[in-house]
């Protein structure tokens, strides 16, 4: 009877091991194949000195810990299935035996853990501050459920505000001050730096740097309410010339285009949207929602929910509560004429 139980275990264990290996390999390959790259994948992709040392730390840890897991699992399987001599089945061995297992096992574990502790503290020290003082300072404030971005400058006239899309010059350290307007959020752009909470009443600081031009996805990672899932942002790293150009464009107030439908759209905006949104250069100075002065220059809308196309914009304005249920943005009931006027006006916000 004992024998059959043994065989059952053995067979099932082998089967189980196979299934496990197959099933862990499958998602890795599938996930990699799925879209080429998962935009928040920080384990394989890092593009700046604030995150790359942590990525290497991750590789070392995963490799080492997988080896340890394999060794201990083999020991366990061996311990369970190893052949035993058939004698003295009734005698129960004493307690004192086997202490060597604990001594050796604990000694090795302690050595590894201390080395890892030192390695991780050294890494922490490396990423704690940038090699050169930051060239640019900006303040990001978390709101339910979007990001306000303020670019600082010694000259107040050169400061400006935007939302949900951060541009940075490539190869330069950027200091980010983190604030919250309501509840706790967390700022996370994994390819450039780890996450930091944005806590009301406190100003946290972090730095990040992109060494390669590109667009990096960010995401709120502290549960902040019903639309926590849709609180994304993008960081656009540009060469210095492009970055300067972008900055200059953002500093300008909205261009005053005059056409029949644009005027109608502007009036509608001032009437219905200006309580929350600001468009610099117009009467819209609301402070509860993203600054839309240069809305058309952004790649995404609704904090990363949709790409910035005229169709999506119209859909967002009229169906916000279906796209982001619970968001502060209401679904506006507009006639077709109103929508086309509003679209025409918004498309002027370069």
């Amino acid at each position, binding site marked *: 009877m*004992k024998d059959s*139980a043994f065989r059952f275990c053995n067979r099932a264990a082998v089967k189980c091991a196979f299934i496990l290996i197959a099933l862990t390999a499958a*998602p890795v390959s599938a996930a990699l194949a799925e879209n080429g790259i998962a935009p928040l994948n920080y384990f394989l992709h890092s593009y700046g000195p604030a995150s790359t040392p942590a990525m290497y*730390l991750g590789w070392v840890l995963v490799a080492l810990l997988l080896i340890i897991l394999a060794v201990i699992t083999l020991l366990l399987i061996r311990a369970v299935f190893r052949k035993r001599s058939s004698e003295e089945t009734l005698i129960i061995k004493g307690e004192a035996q086997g202490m060597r297992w*604990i001594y050796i096992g*604990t000694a090795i574990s302690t050595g590894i853990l201390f080395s*890892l502790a030192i390695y991780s503290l050294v890494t922490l*020290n490396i990423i704690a501050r940038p090699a050169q003082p930051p060239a640019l300072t900006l303040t990001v404030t978390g709101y339910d459920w979007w990001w306000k971005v303020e670019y600082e400058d010694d000259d107040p006239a050169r400061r400006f505000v935007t939302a949900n899309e951060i541009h940075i010059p490539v190869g330069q350290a950027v200091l980010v001050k983190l604030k919250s307007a309501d509840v706790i959020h967390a700022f996370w752009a994994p390819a450039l730096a780890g996450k930091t909470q944005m806590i009301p009443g406190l100003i946290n600081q972090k730095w990040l740097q992109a060494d390669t031009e590109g667009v990096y996805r960010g995401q709120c990672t502290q549960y902040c309410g019903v639309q926590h899932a849709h609180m994304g942002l993008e960081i656009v790293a540009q060469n210095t010339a492009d970055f300067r150009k972008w900055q200059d464009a953002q500093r300008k107030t909205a261009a005053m285009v005059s056409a029949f439908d644009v005027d109608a759209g502007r009036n509608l905006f001032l009437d219905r949207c200006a309580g929350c949104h600001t468009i610099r250069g117009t009467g819209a100075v609301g402070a509860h929602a993203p600054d839309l002065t240069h809305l058309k220059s952004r790649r995404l809308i609704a904090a990363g929910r949709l790409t910035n196309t005229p169709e999506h914009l119209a859909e967002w304005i009229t169906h916000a509560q279906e796209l982001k249920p619970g968001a502060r943005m209401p679904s506006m009931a507009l006639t077709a004429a109103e929508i086309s006027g509003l679209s025409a006006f918004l498309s002027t916000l370069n």
Partner: protein
Amino acid sequence: MSNASQSTPGLNLTRVPDVGSAPIGSAAEIRLAQLWETAPGWRGWLSTVDHKEIGIRYLVTAFIFLLMGGTEALIMRLQLARPDQTLLTPEQYSQLFTMHGITMIFLYSAPMLSGFSNYLWPLMLGSRDMAFPRLNAISYWFFLFAGIFLYASFPLGQAPNAGWFDYVPFAGLDYNTGPNIDVYALGMVLLGISTTVGSINFIVTLFRTRAPGMSINRVPIIVWGTFTASVANVFAIPSVSLVFFLLWLDRQTGTHFFDVVNGGKPMLWQHLFWMFGHPWVYAVVLPAMGIVSEALPTFCRRPLVGYSAVALSTMATMLLGFGVWIHHMFATGLPALALSFFGAASMVISIPSAVAVFAWIATIWLGRPVFKTPFLYFAGFVFLFVVGGLSGVMTAAVPLDFQLNETYFVVAHLHYVLIGINVFPVVGGIYYWFPKFFGRMMNETLGKWSFWVMFIGFNLGFFPMHLSGLLGMPRRIYTYAPNMGWNTVNMITTLGSFIFAAGILIFLANVFISLKRGAIAHSNPWDAPTLEWAIPSPPPAYNFTVIPFVASRHPLWEDRLDEGSGRSILDKGYLLMEGRETIGTTPLDAKPDIILKMPGDSYAPFLLALSTSLAFAGLLLHWRDFTALMSLACTLSLTAWMWPSKALVQCVPDINQDKGAAHG
């Protein structure tokens, strides 16, 4: 040693108890049964203080909460199976993940282990009940009422929705106006009473009610787990009760502890919550590790390797566990120096766990495994423990945790810890002690099926979560876009979680089938070494006909141990039958010290817990008069509880003389 009282001169007793034997069926045994029996029907049901009855209630209630929390998880997994699903609204999802966390962490994992300890401790320690039977009863009633309280707003669609961690200001009145958070805050204060009195009871029970001769180095190893967790609870629970009470004050009386506009500090919440939260993690795993350390050796046919090392590592884990709470807050912007300290401490805490792992492997290696269902659960547990421990090392590395924190990697880690180290030992433990609980064996075939389905389903469901975490999937999102690279992993996780749930259902079916048709179990079906297996299955109300005398760690294996061992005496000892009595012994050496007069069944615990819970309900609903009335009812119940009774006098005659004896 035939008469223990002779070996301890200066016995601190009102009388010298009779020594003798009382075989089943003798006049003495019948008298004992009459003394300890609980009245039949609802009267007995509401008034019993029998630790076995209370233990089973704990197990059943906690298991029902496990099924509720599990159902919530499965609904969430359906929502997450594919991108952009609309099965749940965001608000429903928030309430589900909050209630899932509250249920599993507070209403399942700790109460489940309390159930084991309540049932088993007096049987293992050779006592007739816990030190404070009525406190034991009230800790169950408080647990039950707090559980109902926490779920009261669920059917109204107003369940707590700010996560089990309940961070302010999101949990404050400005962002959460409904009754959700008040329910959570008051429910937690209520549940805190249950855990606190339960813990105190365990501590005193360990130190005062062991059988004579069971010196502190002879207690069964499982006792160390629950004892350590209980001591920790006494220090950790005040922190969480306080923090929820402060939140309730903020919300209802306009104080400003967490109110940013008026100088309140959201970080205060995080610190107080995790000062409790991290020790709590160990409080819900150490007793479960104790189950394995206790029962695994039975199936390896040898004692646990390194009893003292494992006991000490249990306590070391807990001590260190009070110094690592910041690792839940690595991303809050604390200075690097503080992070370094807590990061290093979080690495060091793995060392005592390594001691336990190697002790278990050595025990299996040097033993002769018997492949019964409980053994499968315990061996499987060792693997899951190692996975959970190693992923814990990754999250302890501060710079890496800046990335891992608040992603599904942490979800994977904590489920390997809580399911691997709590659910697997618990289910294995039920298979192991089921014959003792109910006098019937559980079905082996179904048992093996339940293990393999659970084990495969669990790893299939939760291992890929590590990957979704590394792919950047944040926690607590109700949906995700299809282009994030998380589609396949989430589908696999959902499949695995349903397979795991099927394993739990097979186990449940096995319980019901075995209750009716299981083979009859004799007193020691596994040939186990500890005292609970020396008495009939199921145990009689009085537990032991005579209080045993214990001379070794393995009273039932003494004949066969190849190294010398003392001889315990199980069939002859203190009779103690002038009312409900058991023996009180000294804390370290377990010398007989006092005859403990145990209280009879009483309605007072039920009434006190009920009136307190109703007073809390009154606070929740702002019914002032009702709250006042219920507070009065509390006072009356307490008075009834404390009313002096001549039968319970613990009289010690001459203090001066006894002082000398106690130190003698």
